Every structure is written in C-alpha cells, then in structure tokens.
C-alpha cells in the first residue's frame, strides 16, 4: 500500500447535537491531537470530501460543527450515531495561544464562526497553561433561533464577559435578553479595548472587514488581530491549488492569519 496523504481513517460518530435545522455538531471517535484553529478533512463516499474546523477536543474524541449547505454536508446530516465517516488531519496553523497568555483577549465570532473559536475559548477558560488575564467573547447570530452552543454560551457567561447579539428578533415569540444589531456595533460595548488587546475574529468576509475597521478605530494594533480564513479546498495539503492566495495556501499557511499578513492576501 502506498503512503497515501489523501486516505482518511474510518471513525465512528459517537454523538450528534442539533443546534438548529441547519447546524449540527458531531462527536467523532478520533484521537487527534490538534490545536485550536486547525481543521480536518471529512470524507463520505458517493459525496466527497470537505474541510471542517474542529469545534472541540477531548482526550478520546473530537467534535466538528457543520452547516448543511452542500452535497457532503447533506449526506452527513443523514448519518446516525454509530455510523462511520472518513477523517484525516489535523491540518493548518492554529491560533497563537502563547501570544494570548496574560493578555486581554477579545474573541469575536459570527454565526458558525463560533465553532472555529470554540476550542480556543475552552482552552483559555479551562486549561491552565495559557491564561489571558481578561477574556471577552462577542458573538453574533442572525436571530435567536440561529443560536449555536446555547449550553456552552451559558457556561462561558459564568466564567468570562460574554456579549451575544442577534441581527434581528423579527418573527420571534420568545423574549430576547441579548443585544440586537450587527456585531460591529457592539465592539464599543466591550470594556478595556486598547492597543494591546489581542483580538481573534472569525466570520463572513464582510463582517471581518467592518470589524477590523472598528477595532483599528478603537486603537487596536493590526498585529494584534488574527482572523481565520474560509476557502474552497479539495485536498487540505497544498496540492489542489484552490485555496491559494498569492504565495500562501490557506490549508498550509492558514487558516489562521495575523491581520498584517491577511490584509496583503488579496484573492
């Protein structure tokens, strides 16, 4: 047998959490020693293979969180606990944990972007190795029914400063206690933002552009901002060419980029 970099390992689904109609988390029987910010390639025969960020680690399993928007994800949504899928990875560069140690860390996420920063949050809150001196989470969803990780959000709220916002509450029957409006408008509500605040920012491209502008306006230095890129990928190992931006491959050099570098990466 060849040493095949594209061959995944069959892993069992241990658990499925339904967040919304469109989003589910899958706990997989995979012993992967990844770092927050890295991704795996998930493969289903008859459908294909896609990159998905790791949304949680334990010593015996990993968790991925998937939005049902394509061919592979819709097949994934038909699977049940006990079914198998193929997995390879972890791939890519992680968030620079050591840069956050003893610092004020602000994590900003939009929608499913929360999945990509969840391991980072858990690492900062629950591990003792890297401890920011102050941690803020600012997370925005489309509406209250689009909320992900409700249980975890409650848990984090007890341990750090968390702002949860929704773009709109139109058509909602239940009362909403969080903020209403775009995430960018809530940056000013985060206390203690200054030049040395470290910011991790994950979300749709337009949200990133707007929030970076707002952060810089609040005197945050560009080298203190990190973003995670989402790009079309077919291999995850720098061969297929789809995720290349200039001389960088998002799968190899990213998905986490410091903003100083990220801003020179014009697609």
């Amino acid at each position, binding site marked *: 047998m060849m040493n095949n970099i594209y061959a995944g390992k069959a892993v069992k689904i241990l658990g499925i959490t339904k967040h919304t109609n469109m989003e589910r988390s899958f706990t997989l029987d995979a012993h992967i020693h990844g770092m927050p910010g890295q991704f795996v390639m998930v493969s289903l025969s008859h459908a*294909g293979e896609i990159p998905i960020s790791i949304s949680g680690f334990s010593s015996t399993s990993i968790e991925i969180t998937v939005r049902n928007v394509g061919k592979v994800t819709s097949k994934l949504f038909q699977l049940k606990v006990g079914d198998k899928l193929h997995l390879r990875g972890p791939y890519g560069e992680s968030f620079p944990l050591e840069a956050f140690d003893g610092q004020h860390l602000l994590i900003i996420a939009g929608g499913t972007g929360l999945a990509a920063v969840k391991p980072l949050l858990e690492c900062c809150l629950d591990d003792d190795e890297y401890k920011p001196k102050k941690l803020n989470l600012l997370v925005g969803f489309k509406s209250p029914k689009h909320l992900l990780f409700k249980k975890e959000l409650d848990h984090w709220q007890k341990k750090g400063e968390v702002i949860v916002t929704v773009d709109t509450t139109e058509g909602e029957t239940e009362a909403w206690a969080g903020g209403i409006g775009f995430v960018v408008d809530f940056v000013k509500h985060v206390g203690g933002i200054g030049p040395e605040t470290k910011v991790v920012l994950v979300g749709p491209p337009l949200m990133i552009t707007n929030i970076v502008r707002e952060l810089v306006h609040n005197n945050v230095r560009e080298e203190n901002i990190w973003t995670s890129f989402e*790009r*079309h990928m077919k291999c995850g190992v720098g*061969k297929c060419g789809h995720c290349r931006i*200039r001389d960088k491959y998002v799968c190899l050099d990213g998905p986490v980029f410091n903003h100083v570098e990220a801003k020179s990466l014009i*697609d």
Partner: protein
Amino acid sequence: MTKVHKLRECKIYKDRAKMEGLKLNCDKAEGAFDRIIEDYKVVAPKRIAGKGRFSDMDLVSYDMVESLSDIVFNDRTYFSAKSVFFPIRETMFNYDKGCVEDARIEEKLTIIFLRACDINAINIFDTMFLKNGGYQDCYYKRRRESVKIFLLECPRPFADCFCASMGTNKTDNYSVFIRKEENGYAIRINDEAFMKYFSEGAKAKVEPHFIEDDLGALNIPDSIDCSLFRNKMWEEYSQRCIACGRCNTSCPTCTCFTVQDITIEDNMQKSERWRIWSSCQVKNFSLLAGDHDFRILKGDRMRYKVLHKIIDFRKTFGFNMCVGCGRCDQVCPEYIGMAKCIKKINEICIADREEKL
C-alpha cells in the same frame, strides 16, 4: 534573476568521455529505438493530419510513437505532455460496500520527448506535488517515477516563446538527447541506463543547442506593489476573456485539480473518487458552500494566474512558474497574450518606481 532548479532524476554519466555522443544512420537509429520500445512506452510530438485548429491544418500533439520517423522534431505541440504524469482525470479511490481501496495503475516505464522549457516545467510539477507543504502526492509520485526524459532541441524560437527570459531555455536533466540530421540522428547519452540500446554508431561530439535569445525578450519584475491589483490593466481581460480555461489546460505548469465522487448507477454500493484538472479561469474555482465566491471578474482571474506564474510561486520556491513555452498565447480563442501581459506589468512597475523616486 530566475534560477533553474535541478531535477534529481537521471544518473548523470560519470565518465564524461562516454557522454560525447554518437552519430547513427536512420536504420541503425530505428534499430536502437525498436529495442527501446520493447522496454518503454514512448510519448513524443506527433503530427495528426487534419486535426489542427484551422482548416487544412495538422495538429502536433503528444502521442504514443512507435518509430523515430513518427516524431516531429521541429514543431511545438499544441498541448503539453503533462497528462502523462498528471492525467486529465484519475481515479484516487474505489469504494465498494463501505470498503475503500487505493486505485491501481499499470506502471509502465515511459519516455517523454521534451524541450528544455517543458523539462523545467516538470520540475515545477515535482515542486508542487512532491514538496509543497512537505507532503508527497503518491498518485503523482508513482507515475513520475516511471518517466524518463529525452531532450528535443529547438531549431529556432517559436512564435510567442520566451524561455530565455524565464531562464528555462537550458537543461541538463535528460537521459538522452536526440537531434534529427540530414542522413540520420545525433545522439547524446546522459543516463547509463540507456547505453545498452546504442551499441552501434560513430563516436562524435554531440551538444544540444539551446535558445539563447527570445524573439521578444521580457523583463520580469522582482516584486510588485499591491496597487497593481487595482490597476485598470485588468479590465481589458474582463472584457475579452471568455473563461474557457484553455490557457490552463495547455499550460505545462498548471497543476490545480478538483476532486469528485462518481457513483456507478447500476451499483449504488460502488463509487469512485476522481481527481480532475481544474482551471482558475473558469467559474466556481473558488466557490464556497453557501455561494460566497472570489474573483468574479475575469480580469481578476487573469491577474491571479499571471502573478502566480511570475511572482507568487517564486516567492516560495525561488524560481518562476511560467516557463515561457508560449502555448497559452497560441490556444487562446480571444487572442490574450501572456507575454504582452507580463510586459504591461513590468512597465507599470517601472512607472511606479520612477514615480516614487
């Protein structure tokens, strides 16, 4: 400025005296070739009558050859030979009832007749598939390891070629060089493995001639300013390009591929995972699930491709990705010119620099 990378591929003959070469008449050369094709599949430029791009024109294309007389020595091929080691589509995995198996291939030793630019192009393939990111692509590797290279000489620069400008005009990474002469063939053997096929013939000094000067020499800028991304020069390509992707398919250094799962209708238990050539000029190259896309304008796709070929690849690996073979100019149905585009970029860079001074 541009360094030509060395292929690790052939065992260069230690005794230089033996490398000098041979002259063989046609019969003896064909005899040697007959012995070679017993051991190797030979792929070389071949004339295919009436299949050219215009009426009453032949196509010169890479194909299997069985005689030296089949080989077209003096014309450039329309497509490169890359499909030999990077098939247009290739099965990666076979799936059957939940089991997965690596696709097998018949690994027949293959000789490809290539010009200097195309030999240097293989080095770019090696770089992408065997080095980039520190990962080795096993599908590429197994085909590549069965390839031996024979050098073809360029009698003159072809239209739109600019190998000398790209530094890809020369190479010593070949097993055998063959030149067709009036009454026979001149041969230079660089690889011990091929000595045994050439037992006859008169010793002679045989050196390949390489192109020294391009018809239109180009300067490649060392680096570019980000303002080039917003330059109006790209608008013309948005107007002109029809996103057919021929420039990518004809390019000897375009390595991008996509992956697709194919279901066999009669047997839903079975499926195959294929990889297929992919083109950065064609729609949906970067489309994300959820319909977010990048480089919607064709001018931006042209910019993405050209800057990769002359700037971005070099930033990582130290040599350019474009080898100046000129095929993309020849195949473009909208007469878009790579050389012209490079020239324009260089002019803009010079003007920028002068403005800053």
